[in-house]
């Protein structure tokens, strides 16, 4: 166990040093995404009643958390696969779980500044007073980790070019066709049904409930959906790394 923890620390340090090259760019992208989500939706909707503003104010933080894992992770992993460094890492005597855990910690950590920025932008722009719950860090971690695991598994299983293309499509799905910055009832029934089983709705609901506890309840179903997706995505990412062609 000590060896595994030591290896995790060493590999995590390696990955953080490598990521330090792109961290400034990642933070800029997150700021742009967060501000674009908040300000852009504000322009689209115009003067809106308070319930709508609550969705807009909290949606950007969820978008930031999700976008790093679901969109940037596949792009980074696809790049590593294309240049060959991904295969080299897999030749190291590291348990596959250590590889997943290190990347998960890295991407989750990188997602957190964007979440905070998105939240600050939203609350200032729409003049919303937050009412936080103690569960917020745990939920934010679960959202970021789940998104990163799904993105990681996608990047491992698909051709690198396909992974990049899908991640770009996912940007639009997350921003426009997911009940993150507006209520799910606005979507057509068939899309509502799909979102009931996908993790995005549960992620957004739980984040809202943790940010505005007086306005949104924590639903048991959301907790279950997110927990199942989190575990399944973790297992999927580990399986994808263990898979031998």
């Amino acid at each position, binding site marked *: 166990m000590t060896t595994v923890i030591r*290896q995790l620390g*060493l590999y995590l340090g390696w990955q953080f040093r490598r990521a*330090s090259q792109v961290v400034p760019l990642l933070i800029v992208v997150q700021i742009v995404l967060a501000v674009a989500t908040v300000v852009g939706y504000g322009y689209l909707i115009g003067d809106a009643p308070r319930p709508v503003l609550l969705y807009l104010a909290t949606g950007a933080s969820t978008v930031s958390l999700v976008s790093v894992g679901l969109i940037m992770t596949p792009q980074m992993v696809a790049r590593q696969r294309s*240049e060959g460094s991904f*295969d*080299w890492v897999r030749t190291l005597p*590291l*348990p596959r779980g250590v590889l997943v855990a290190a990347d998960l910690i890295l991407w989750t950590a990188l997602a957190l500044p964007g979440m905070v920025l998105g939240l600050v932008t939203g609350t200032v722009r729409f003049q919303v007073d937050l009412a936080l719950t103690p569960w917020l860090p745990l939920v934010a971690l679960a959202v970021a980790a789940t998104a990163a695991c799904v993105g990681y598994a996608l990047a491992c299983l698909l051709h690198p070019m396909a992974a990049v293309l899908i991640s770009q499509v996912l940007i639009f799905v997350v921003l426009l066709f997911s009940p993150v910055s507006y209520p799910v009832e606005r979507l057509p029934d068939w899309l509502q049904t799909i979102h009931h089983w996908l993790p995005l709705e549960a992620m957004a609901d739980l984040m809202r409930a943790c940010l505005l506890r007086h306005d949104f309840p924590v639903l048991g179903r959301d907790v279950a959906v997110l927990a199942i997706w989190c575990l399944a995505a973790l297992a999927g990412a580990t399986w994808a790394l263990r898979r031998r*062609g």
Partner: protein
Amino acid sequence: MTDQPTLVVHQVSKRYPGRAGVQANDRVSLTVPAGQVVGLLGHNGAGKTTLVGQIVGLLRPDSGSISLAGHDAVAQPGLARRLTSVQVQTACALEGITPRGAIRTIGRIRGGSRAQVRARADQLIEALDLGPWADRPAEQLSGGVARLTAFGMAAVVPGALVILDEPTNDVDPVRRRLLWGQIQRLAEAGTAVLLITHNVREAEQVVDRLVVLEQGQVVAAGSLAELTADGQRDLEEAYIAICGRSPDPTAAAPDRLAEPQTAGSAGSENRP
């Protein structure tokens, strides 16, 4: 203690699926004893990198067996990776990391103690004349220095088997000699070394045995004396006689260990 070679590859076959499925390895057998350098020669697409992928558990053979230090490497890929150090031909994810830091970290990941790894890293940096670049971030390094760093990462705490895939690519002639010397040192210390190279002229100075792969099959194997008819021809002439073409060192495009390539892509190892 057993007399069994460190690496025993027996009748390994690997076919990539798909409409244009290709037989990357066809009943390949070879051995690498402890303390020896075995050269694996072959053109791009001959199946060399596919074989390496199977030894370290990134690919699963369709048939055949691979034994590493007496263990079944196919059944225990994690153990195979602990027993094997690999210098791949492609990038090693060094951006933001210095050669000294990279060699030390990999040594620690491979289980070396802090003091042991520091001493060995310093020794390798000096032996490979990497001193002037040892503490510069990798993005400021030339391809040759990055490759020497990758060798250092494979050699710092070597496993029972060290696999070197084109270790001298981009390395200047002076440091090439230093590198070949370090490869010999690895073998003298008891490590089994599998050396993949196109550079037959230089390789013949260090290898104990050679295996030539062509279209996934072993077409020749033996000691240097056996392949060169006791020195009556040089190794390059022998290679041309066996394969009907030059080893062409300029064709050393990067291969991938585990990812099937699209048809006709540069550097693909016999893959669809």
